[in-house]
């Protein structure tokens, strides 16, 4: 039995006619064709499916879409604005913070939630915030550097825009 579910993804409103027992990850990928969000373990252990829901990084493989109707859902597809990459995307490219790239969307979303909620970041805080995102290529050092770089840029742009 299918059900109509209203979802707001990357500021766009979607009415999805889907099975209510599908996870948000499945609905994003299969019904909305937003395949940037990856399915890894599907058991909440790897972080590849991380999306931001109302500002918090959560695991879309364990979220039921009916429970996030009315919430703001952000996926990796929403990072670039007006054709320009997000500071995190830029720093990941510049520092080579992706190897096979499978964990990257999840890393980016955990990192985005972090840099938007905390100003005073250091490598330890970044490590802790990304501790739910596994990188099988083990390229953690560059990922952490890239997040630190982007957070500095994020701070300077928010300061400019407020100043």
């Amino acid at each position: 039995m299918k059900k109509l579910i209203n979802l707001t993804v990357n500021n766009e409103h979607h009415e999805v006619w889907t099975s209510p027992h599908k996870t948000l990850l499945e609905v994003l990928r299969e019904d909305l064709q937003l395949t940037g969000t990856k399915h890894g373990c599907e058991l909440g252990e790897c972080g590849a499916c991380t999306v931001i829901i109302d500002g918090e990084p959560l695991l879309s493989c364990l979220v039921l879409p009916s429970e996030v109707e009315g919430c703001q859902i952000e996926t990796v597809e929403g990072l670039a604005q007006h054709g320009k990459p997000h500071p995190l995307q830029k720093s990941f490219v510049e520092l080579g913070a992706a190897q096979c790239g499978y964990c990257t969307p999840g890393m980016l979303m955990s990192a985005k939630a972090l840099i938007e909620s905390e100003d005073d970041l250091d490598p330890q805080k970044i490590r802790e915030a990304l501790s739910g995102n596994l990188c099988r290529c083990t390229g953690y050092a560059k990922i952490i550097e890239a997040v630190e770089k982007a957070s500095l840029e994020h701070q300077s742009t928010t300061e400019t825009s407020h100043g």
Partner: protein
Amino acid sequence: MLRLPPFELLQPATLAEALELKKQHGEDAMYTSGGTDLYPNMKRRQFEPHFLIALKGIEELSRIEIKNGIRIGAGVSLDKVANHPFIQEHYTALSTAAGLVSSPQLRKMGTLGGNLCVDTRCTYYNQNYPWRKSLGFCMKKDGDICWVARSSPKCLAVSSSDCAPVMLALEADFILLGNEDQRTIKAEEFYQDDGIHYLRKKPDEVLISISLPEKSGWNSVYKKLRRRGTIDFPVLGAAVSVRLDEDGICQDARLALGAVSSAPVLASKASEKLLGKKPDSDLIQAAAYEASKLAKPMDNTDMNLGYRKKMVSVFASRALSEAIAS
């Protein structure tokens, strides 16, 4: 792909509605809140309820009240418990344990109540359906044998909650609401040493809140053993709360162990060793050794059996030393 089996999601607005729905659907329905333990288990076909009763939207379950101690709603997220200033100050072991559960994302989704009721775990159980089928299933689900110890009459799956042993150490009371009544049960009586029937909770009952007594003058510590510094369930947990007087004499002590059997264990004989004495390192070692006698780990979790057994006194002694020194 691992997909959830079909079910209907019911979203009651109040606890009374939730209980009514459970009464209506009986065994066909299960309660869910964060879903971080139940959904993986459903994906592996360990549970296939036709109805899920979502407790997440019920406001009453997400309250924290500070009065003669603290009362924490079972629906409060582990992340909130870990970062709550009053809990960090007065119930340090609890904020530590909650902050060590799984990963940052999962702690924002998972709840305190969920962690306290988390399903017991075992190498032979936490596998997907084809894996379990190829072995011939185990008694916890779909089979009749325990693969850990074939002659065992009961399931030996392991209590894998970080917060449960802390609740024993902090003398918590659990408040359960059922169709008949509301009742309060001591944390240590809530659990029983049986991997299948590991909670003394009736199917219709909901764990609604956790009440912790006032603990000024106490220090509490939680230590966790696992392979990685994140994500993994505890292979061992040691929770301690102690109260020393001005001269450093131990007035009260409670030590509890997690992940050593199907229930968290209160090490009463070990804590008694400390009472009325000024604990030095020899006494702490003796108490930790006494506690380790209670641990009878089986070969059904991560890490080598002998190592896990050895680590019980090491972790108990580290937790005791830290609680006494702080």
